[in-house]
């Protein structure tokens, strides 16, 4: 029998109970059970003897067989032989003193225990087979095998034995007696034992209420029993009343306490009945009555126990149903899933109140009808949904899914996702459509927002003038804006071709870049993608059909977990042209100021030319005189000619230097010796210095590192400074007019030249803006000289600054970086 421990209020959670056989698994429990069974066998046998029919080997009830069967059911199969071993002495102890012979005893033992074995085996087998079918099926198996089949079979043998040994005289009478006796015993004694074993194993403490109830039931039984026994009526008269009075108690026990209660109640009934029987005189007519009694026991026990089983099953199923319902509620609440159930024929639709509440309505405000629900649907979605539902109801297809809008009470729109499936009846005909409805408003809102963002960013990209493309971590183009695509299609193959999506842009750059631009661009992009560079800029020239354009490529990393970068090409032609123009004008201005300086030095330069010219003229005229003389002094003539040539060359070099300075040339950076440049400049300015009575003091450091600069522009700067210095000293005493030029290595890989004068110094208010354009102390000056000087020095990577000397006068410093080629 499956779980009989239904006496307690909390049922086991499992809907299926594993076979409760082998309940006693621990060796201690098993040992105890064996001992108990031996003892029970003995006392059961004694009881049976006490209830024996006169002149019959049979009793009304024979407990030992039931006890043995119970033991077999509770113990594992391998211990059955131990059980037999233990039961045999008990059997012997009872039978032999009663006067039975050893063979008879042995024979009876065999038949009885065989009956138990067979019954137990059959019950186990069939219960195992039908274990899923429910407790009541197991009960039927028990009744069929153990209560009826086994006793029926073995009674044949047993009756035959007794007939042969002469203990019984009527075969069928004996058979009937034995069969009913064993059947009744089985049904009365086995269930309580099994229930007890189950209860002991599960050790559940019953609540106070249940204990009280059980006690009350027991007291009722006791009361009735006492009344019955005390009255000592004639059996046949009071039997109906007896049963009638106990029936409610039996039902009470069965329903409230399950199988355990039912079996105990039945046991109680039996006890009461036996107790009342004790008062009868036993006659042959009594025997018939006793047979009737046994039959009645059987007939009452089976339905009552069945009722108990069914009731237990029912309660368990209700409990599991409650659990299922709980889970369902939890699931739908947690997932905000509402369930609906629509009957297409009537239109009635069960709608969960949560669903109605989501629209702002109470349960009663929306009728449970499909039309009532459809009222709240958005006019655009209603017809579609209705169509889908109707199609589903027909089974074409038998399931549907649809997202639609519903109108909230406050007028706002909510999105719902409904899923439905067709449920067919037993005949395959469409019965109802059931499904779920989920509020997906949030998801829609987020999707809408995302879409809006996408549209916005797409619009932004599209409206940009620059050609922008997004490349992924591997350098492959994933997206490009309109400008990019347009340019790419119009000018295929241009420098850094604007390739289409899906193309590896790094490779494209490497291939389509001009000269070294390609690899450097590819390297730059890779560096940005890899994170080793913060950004990459490249200006390049692109020849298009409508002319030469300048572009600037900018690559910046894309701030997202997947990485990638944004590549943009901007047309900077206008800016570049402006820059070129600006540079050209600057060069022009530089030239003009240089010419201006030379203009200032023109007197001195003229003087410089004059000296060699004088020498030439005088030498030539002297030679003419010498030629007129006799004798010809050829030596003198020779030296005179030599002097003429020298003088001419000197003049030539002045012209050359002048020409160089006057040339409007491009900047030519070369490694220069600053000392040489200083000397050249001093030669140029020599006459002017002399004319102004300025004394030059030079301290030129030997082994000065070379600087990388344009000779002409450097000369311009130094000339400017020297001319300025001279002009600053016009008001100084001639003896004080000292121009100091010092060259020395500067700090941080630079070379420094300092031009100092002994003039009046720089006025304090002019110091800040000294190198600004149009700042001058001269009466007729533009004020551009120093600003041009500063831009020249800056273009060389150097610095130009002025300091007022603490003595008097000012010093102008020019620091230039050392040429990378190293020192001379």
């Amino acid at each position, binding site marked *: 029998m499956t779980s009989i421990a239904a006496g307690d209020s909390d049922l086991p959670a499992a809907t299926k109970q594993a076979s409760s056989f082998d309940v006693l698994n621990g060796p201690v429990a098993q040992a105890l059970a064996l001992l108990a069974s031996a003892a029970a066998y003995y006392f059961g046998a004694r009881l049976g003897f006490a209830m024996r029919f006169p002149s019959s080997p049979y009793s009304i009830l024979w407990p030992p067989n039931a006890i043995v069967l119970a033991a077999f059911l509770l113990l594992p199969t391998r211990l059955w032989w131990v059980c037999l071993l233990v039961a045999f002495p008990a059997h012997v102890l009872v039978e032999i003193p009663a006067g039975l012979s050893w063979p008879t005893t042995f024979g009876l033992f065999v038949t009885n225990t065989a009956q138990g074995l067979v019954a137990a085996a059959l019950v186990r087998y069939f219960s195992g087979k039908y274990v899923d079918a429910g407790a009541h099926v197991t009960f039927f198996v028990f009744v069929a095998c153990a209560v009826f089949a086994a006793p029926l079979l073995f009674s044949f043998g047993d009756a035959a034995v007794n007939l042969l040994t002469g203990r019984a005289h009527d075969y069928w009478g004996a058979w009937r007696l034995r069969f009913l006796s064993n059947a009744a015993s089985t049904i009365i004694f086995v269930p309580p034992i099994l229930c007890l074993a189950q209860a002991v194993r599960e050790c559940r403490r019953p609540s106070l209420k249940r204990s009280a109830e059980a006690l009350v039931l027991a007291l009722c039984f006791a009361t009735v029993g006492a009344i019955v026994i005390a009255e000592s009526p004639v059996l046949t008269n009071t039997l109906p009343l007896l049963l009638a009075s106990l029936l409610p108690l039996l039902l009470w026990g069965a329903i409230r306490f399950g199988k355990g209660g039912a079996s105990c109640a039945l046991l109680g009934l039996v006890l009461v009945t036996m107790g009342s029987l004790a008062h009868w005189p036993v006659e042959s007519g009594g025997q018939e009555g006793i047979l009737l009694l046994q039959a009645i026991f059987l007939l009452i026990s089976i339905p009552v126990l069945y009722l108990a089983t069914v009731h237990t099953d029912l309660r368990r199923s209700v409990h599991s149903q409650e659990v299922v319902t709980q889970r369902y509620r939890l699931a739908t609440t947690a997932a905000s899933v509402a369930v609906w159930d629509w009957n297409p024929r009537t239109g009635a639709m069960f709608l969960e109140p949560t669903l109605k509440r989501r629209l702002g309505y109470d349960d009663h405000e929306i009728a449970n009808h499909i039309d009532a629900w459809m009222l709240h649907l958005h006019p655009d979605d209603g017809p579609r949904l209705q169509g889908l539902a109707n199609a589903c109801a027909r089974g074409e297809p038998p399931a549907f899914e649809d997202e639609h809008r519903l109108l909230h009470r406050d007028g706002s729109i909510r999105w719902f996702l409904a899923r439905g499936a067709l449920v067919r009846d037993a005949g395959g005909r469409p019965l109802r459509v059931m499904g779920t409805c989920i509020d997906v408003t949030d998801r829609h809102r987020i999707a809408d927002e995302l879409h809006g963002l996408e549209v916005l960013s797409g619009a932004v990209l599209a409206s940009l003038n620059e050609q922008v493309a997004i490349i992924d971590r591997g350098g492959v183009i994933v997206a490009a804006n309109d400008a990019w695509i347009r340019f790419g299609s119009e000018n295929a193959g241009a420098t850094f071709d604007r390739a289409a999506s899906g193309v590896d842009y790094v490779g494209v750059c490497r291939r389509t870049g001009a000269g070294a631009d390609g690899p450097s661009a590819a390297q730059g992009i890779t560096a940005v993608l890899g994170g080793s560079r913060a950004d990459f800029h490249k200006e390049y020239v692109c020849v298009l059909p409508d002319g030469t354009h300048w572009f600037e490529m900018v690559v910046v990393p894309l701030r997202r977990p997947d990485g990638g970068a944004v590549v943009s090409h901007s047309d900077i032609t206008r800016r570049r042209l402006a820059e070129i123009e600006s540079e050209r004008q600057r060069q022009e201005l530089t030239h003009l100021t240089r010419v201006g300086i030379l203009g200032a030095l023109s007197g001195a330069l003229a*003087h410089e030319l004059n000296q060699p010219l*004088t*020498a*030439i*003229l*005088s030498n030539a*005229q002297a030679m003419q005189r010498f030629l*007129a003389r006799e004798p010809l002094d050829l030596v003198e003539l020779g030296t005179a000619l030599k*002097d003429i040539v020298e003088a001419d060359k000197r003049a030539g070099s002045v012209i050359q230097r002048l020409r160089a300075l006057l040339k409007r040339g491009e900047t030519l950076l070369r490694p220069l010796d600053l000392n040489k440049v200083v000397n050249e400049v001093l030669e140029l300015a020599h006459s002017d210095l002399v*004319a102004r009575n300025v004394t030059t003091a030079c301290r030129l450091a030997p082994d000065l590192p070379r600087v990388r600069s344009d000779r002409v522009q450097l000369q311009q700067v130094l000339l400017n400074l020297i001319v300025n210095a001279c002009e600053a000293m016009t008001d100084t005493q001639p003896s004080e007019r000292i121009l100091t030029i010092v060259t020395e290595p500067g700090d941080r890989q630079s070379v420094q030249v300092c031009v100092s004068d002994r003039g009046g110094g720089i006025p304090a208010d002019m110091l800040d803006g000294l190198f600004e354009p149009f700042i001058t102390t001269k009466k007729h000056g533009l004020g551009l000289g120093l600003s041009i000087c500063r831009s020249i020095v800056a273009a060389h990577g150097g610095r130009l600054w002025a300091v007022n000397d603490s003595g008097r006068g000012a010093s102008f410093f020019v620091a230039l970086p050392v040429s990378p080629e190293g020192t001379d």
Partner: protein
Amino acid sequence: MVQYTAAPEFCYRPWRMEKLPLRIAVVDDDESVRKALKRLLRASNLDAKTFESGGDFLASLASYQPDCVILDLHMPGMNGLDVQRQLTRNGVPLPVVIITGHDEPQTRAQCLAAGATAYMCKPLDEEVLLDAIRRAIGIRAHESAESQK
């Protein structure tokens, strides 16, 4: 063939009545100019001695008395004007011819006012130079003659 007018190679010093070549001093900071002028003056039978600076010249006066001095105006240290003024201060009755690479009107006026006999611009034509020397000597001779009376 160019006709050379007679150069005053000789002068008659009234007090000595000797025929001696004239001694001309040339003071110029530029070596090529010095050499060329010296050659030209020698070609004209004049005794020329060149000095690099005014200081050198003045120092040499103790031992060498020229009859005329050709002074370059623009020289470092003492320029021609300074030398001239020094001569006047020292009371040396030396005729001075100023030569210069620049032609500035105020300097010309200054020099002539300081007592220069001539102010000439480079390059120097021999005739102009010799003529200037002649006049300078002539004036001096006249002056000395006057002083003798």
